[in-house]
């Protein structure tokens, strides 16, 4: 018990003394996961909406595939991205392996099915009569989807929260694609693993606490956005 308390005490010391390395790692984690989430939203929301409103063959199969993708193991995503970005791989010319860009791609692949699947189900909750009415008023598909998205924006924000939460907590993909290089690709999660293995529990706890705090701050910001929309209705 003693050593846990001692670990916490030292961890708080590290955080409040403003240990520059911890904060640099936190900034990288935040940047990578936020960018990956943002790209996943830009691609996943339109894709999910399109899947929801369109009729096409094998639609159920596609939705089932997207839903399965929500459980995509990050290490598998990491492995695939690593193979593609490797110098001997098809995208090797980019030189993105072991860089933040590579980690963003891996995390994008993890977040995309989550955002897409949640967008599909949110969009399908819109009353089809409402959607058809907008079309009847002369709107294009794209305009109609846009109107519906405004209706379901609360749920979309919830999807963003779910996606970001998964990414910021993810360790397997960024370990494989990033390589946990100090000052370059070390994330809060990979640093926690490394410090734990080294037996530096104070450092591990400190980084873990920063990780929790980071998740909270971002979720707080997103929740404020979400809840403000409730009030202004």
């Amino acid at each position, binding site marked *: 018990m003693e050593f846990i308390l001692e670990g916490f005490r030292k961890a708080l010391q590290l955080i409040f003394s403003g240990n520059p390395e911890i904060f640099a790692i936190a900034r990288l984690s935040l940047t990578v996961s936020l960018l990956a989430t*943002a790209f996943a939203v830009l691609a996943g929301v339109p894709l999910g909406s399109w899947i929801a409103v369109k009729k096409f063959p094998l639609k159920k199969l596609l939705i089932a595939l997207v839903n399965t993708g929500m459980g995509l193991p990050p290490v598998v995503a990491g492995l695939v991205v690593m193979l593609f970005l490797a110098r001997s791989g098809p995208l090797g010319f980019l030189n993105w392996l072991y860089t933040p860009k590579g980690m963003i791609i891996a995390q994008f692949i993890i977040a995309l099915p989550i955002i897409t699947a949640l967008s599909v189900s949110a969009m399908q909750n819109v009353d089809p009569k409402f959607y058809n009415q907008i079309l009847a008023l002369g709107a294009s598909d794209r305009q109609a989807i846009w109107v519906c998205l405004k209706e379901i924006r609360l749920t979309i924000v919830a999807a963003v929260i779910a996606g970001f939460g998964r990414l910021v907590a993810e360790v397997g993909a960024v370990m494989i694609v990033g390589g946990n290089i100090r000052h370059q690709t070390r994330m809060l999660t990979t640093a926690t693993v490394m410090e734990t293995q080294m037996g530096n*529990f104070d450092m591990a706890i400190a980084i873990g606490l920063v990780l929790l705090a980071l998740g909270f701050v971002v979720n707080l910001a997103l929740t404020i956005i979400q809840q403000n929309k409730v009030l202004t209705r």
Partner: protein
Amino acid sequence: MKNNLVLAALGALLLAGCAKSEPKNIIRLATTTSVRDTGLLDMLNETFQKDGKYTLQAIAVGSGQAMQLGRTGEADILWVHSPDDEKKFVEEGYGIERTTFLHNDFVILGPEADPAKVKGAKKAEEAFRKIAEAKAGFVSRADQSGTHKKELKLWAAAKVKPAGKFYLEAGQGMAGTLSIAEEKKAYVLADRSTWLSMAKNLKLGIVSEGDDLLINRYSLILANPAKFPKVNAPGARAYFDFVLSKPAKELIEKFGVEKYGQQLFFYDYAAK
């Protein structure tokens, strides 16, 4: 309005992330966890990167995996410690100018109680035989690293086939493996420098050391640019020359004296 502010703040963060430009001359070093976990790598690389000409991507994995990176042309230069594999690596044409420049030694660590009564064993193979005979726990790296290869050599020398309940295969780096051995109160083979750098967190102690078989030699190998045209050959050469220079020699020889009270790595190369 409030929403726009929050969104603007998020957007600014994203831009800040994008704006950071990629440094140009990137050198990829594949190396072993022991070199990183002791802090030697960070110390050397800070000096190397000081003038801003190069950025070093040091991937710290086991020697086996490091050489695998070398075999597919992913690494520009290797810093490894698995002599037999290294020779094969160079013979097969993947690397050139293998230079053995550094050594430290392995130690056999065990729990204080020493259930296999290994303490006092002068020969490493004798220590290993005792561990196997007593069926006391042993944690293996089991990751094709230099340490793992050395361990397998020692089992062969002891004429014991490492298998069965007493033999745990961790599949992790040195630090992770040491932590498992600590919790399981098991024996383990470790390089002295990683052990020293973690000793404050461990109750494991040395039960056998000093055998010639336990010497641990590190080499640098350049990726063969004739075989892999994509490797950064000039950058790799610059790092190679830096590590084999007098200033690097002095840094390495001083490394650890202040923090651990003893020298961790011994430089064997006649640096220029």
